[in-house]
């Protein structure tokens, strides 16, 4: 079942099944949150389910992910999360202390992100019918002023920014499962990106065209989606893409591409060229933004694709991920 892993299969499921049957307008580009206007209040709403194994891993846990993930989906839609409701699906027999630890993690993450948890629901399914626990969070946010996120506004020459090193979360989870017997001093990057998004909007709001948090499927998948939505090419400079040593080492050992690895505390932004320096500077000065970099730019070509180019003039197309990233030996 490749459909949950981000990338092409997920997109086909949404575009082929959900959008035509469920959504009012399937012509709008797929984004991380829907925008609503209710009695003059401009809101964003989104929902996300969290399934992760192991439940706790270096740097975070499922409860923390469930809060930050939804806060981040709203943030990159240009909204500040105001309230969350949460649904737990629990496997019968789950130990109380495991649940309690996750509820505490959620409470703490919510405090940290400045969002209230205002309601929820719990379902218990038979032992063996779920894997420990699943968490769904639905968030409502207030759209921030001074920014409009629209893939159609992206233009050739725009710069592509990333908030920090890529791949920490995905590699941390892969190693934490223990099946590969690798160890590394790595932690998930899970965090609320709202402070960084606010810093960016404050400094370069009118220049921001697009933002996305590259979770499953990694930066390559998010940028491919943008490339297809705007019909332009995303050209990355390989030596500018920030990747930690241990993530790189694991990727080399396992034959993976850091651009395909999931992140839970980073976002990508496309910014008009005249705002690029001030945008980068604002992010670098904000807490947790010192790893932000300009990693490439938008070009006319290759239309609809992501191209990684190297200092010596070589280049390659990087597609969306097909299914989960699988370690390879050849």
């Amino acid at each position, binding site marked *: *079942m*490749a459909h949950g892993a981000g990338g*092409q*299969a997920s997109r086909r499921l949404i575009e082929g099944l959900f959008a035509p049957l469920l959504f009012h307008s399937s012509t709008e580009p797929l984004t991380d949150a829907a925008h609503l206007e209710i009695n003059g209040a401009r809101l964003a709403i989104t929902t996300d389910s969290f399934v992760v194994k192991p439940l706790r891993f270096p740097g975070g846990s499922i409860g923390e992910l469930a809060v930050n993930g939804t806060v981040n989906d709203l943030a990159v839609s240009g909204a500040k999360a105001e309230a969350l409701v949460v649904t737990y699906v629990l496997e019968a027999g789950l130990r109380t202390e495991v649940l309690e630890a996750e509820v505490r993690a959620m409470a703490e993450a919510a405090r940290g992100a400045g969002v209230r948890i205002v309601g929820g629901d719990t379902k218990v399914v038979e032992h063996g019918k779920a894997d420990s626990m699943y968490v769904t969070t639905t968030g409502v946010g207030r759209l921030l002023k001074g920014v409009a996120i629209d893939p159609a506004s992206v233009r050739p020459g725009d710069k592509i920014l990333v908030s920090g090193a890529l791949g920490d979360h995905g590699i941390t989870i892969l190693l934490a499962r223990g*099946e*590969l*017997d*690798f160890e590394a001093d790595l932690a998930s990057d899970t965090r609320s990106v709202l402070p960084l998004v606010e810093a960016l909007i404050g400094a370069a709001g009118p220049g921001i065209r697009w933002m996305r948090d590259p979770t499953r499927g990694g930066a390559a998948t998010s940028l491919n989606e943008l490339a297809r939505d705007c019909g332009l*090419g995303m*050209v990355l*400079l390989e030596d500018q893409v920030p990747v930690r*040593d241990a993530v*790189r*080492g694991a990727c*080399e050992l*396992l*034959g993976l591409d850091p651009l395909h690895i999931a992140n839970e505390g980073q976002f990508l932004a496309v910014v008009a060229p005249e705002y690029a320096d001030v945008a980068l500077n604002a992010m670098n000065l904000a807490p947790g933004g010192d790893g932000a970099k300009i990693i490439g730019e938008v*070009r006319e*070509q*290759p*239309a*609809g*694709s992501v*191209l*990684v*180019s*190297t*200092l*010596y*003039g*070589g*280049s*390659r*197309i*990087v*597609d969306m991920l*097909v*299914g989960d990233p*699988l*370690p*390879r*030996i*050849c």
Partner: protein
Amino acid sequence: MRFVDEFRQPELISKAAEEIRRLADPGRHYRMMEVCGGHTHAIYRFGLKDVLPSNLELIHGPGCPVCVLPMGRIDDGLAVARQPDVIFAAFGDMMRVPGTQGSPLEHKARGMDVRIVYSPADALKLARTNPDKHVLFFAIGFETTAPSTALTILRAKAEGIKNFSVFCNHVTIIPAIRAILDSPDMRLDAFIGPGHVSTVIGCRPYEWIAQNERKPIVVCGFEPVDLLQSIVMLLRQLKAGEAKVENQYKRVVPWEGNRAALRAMSEVFQLRSYFEWRGLGFISQSALRIRDEYAEWDTEQRFSVPGVRVTDPKAAQCGEVLKGVLKPHQCKLFGQECTPEHPIGALMVSSEGSCAAYYNYEHRKMATANILIQTA
């Protein structure tokens, strides 16, 4: 990363590429085959075609163990794993490779106990920790990987682990190169020799290519500088009218190979009289089976294996692509029916396969002509 980063330095890559342009005779068309799928992957990953002159063509060879594995072998392995209390363990590379009833991952979705392992040693570990299950390790690979499987079987025997067997699909590279060279429509100037296979077999097994076939061959590393340096070495041989075996990858490959690894292989394996290769057909003495002394750890001797044979769809022109007669995108199915998500032909099933590598890294680049990349 030491021994990696220094061989990716842009200045050295540019310098080696410049030397290639200087050495290549503009009036001549060069066709060099990189035998190894790892090289194919590296060529695309590092975008090396962009720095090579247009009259130097790289032909992607048969050295991808996933691609050349007949679909029937996957069906056979999964058929055994369908029996109760069997764990199917394989490298991640195998997980999306389709059998007639679906890939290992699809079997997992239907309830089969399928595990991704990084090492044959990890499969043996699964057997240790699951004493009430049988662990079937679906072994693939050329001579680089075969010694590790052999040593794992030796360790299983030494420890007396009985709930472990290997479904052996190990193949050998030399007969495949011979089959390529014997093909009548084959026109090649030189070979980029497989680097990691050569850590085991050494450089001597290639001597016939130089002496009898008069083709230069350079055993080559996997970083961009390695590949370009090897092309320089091949061009120099061609210019001088020579045909020698040279070792560009001396930092890793000893001329004589790894005797301990060869001993482990010959202790555990013997040559099969013939084996089927996807895209190339039956090749004699081109694969390994487990010796009768180790029958207890041989899936094929321990279980009844159906022996499924599946012929590739006629429309798929994998053989022609493998021999370099066609480019991947010239196949009728390429990018239409046959894609990495739904591979039909052998070369689309692994990211190392020339079609998948071409699809993933190149074809849209080709489709949008004349992209000028100015790196900042």
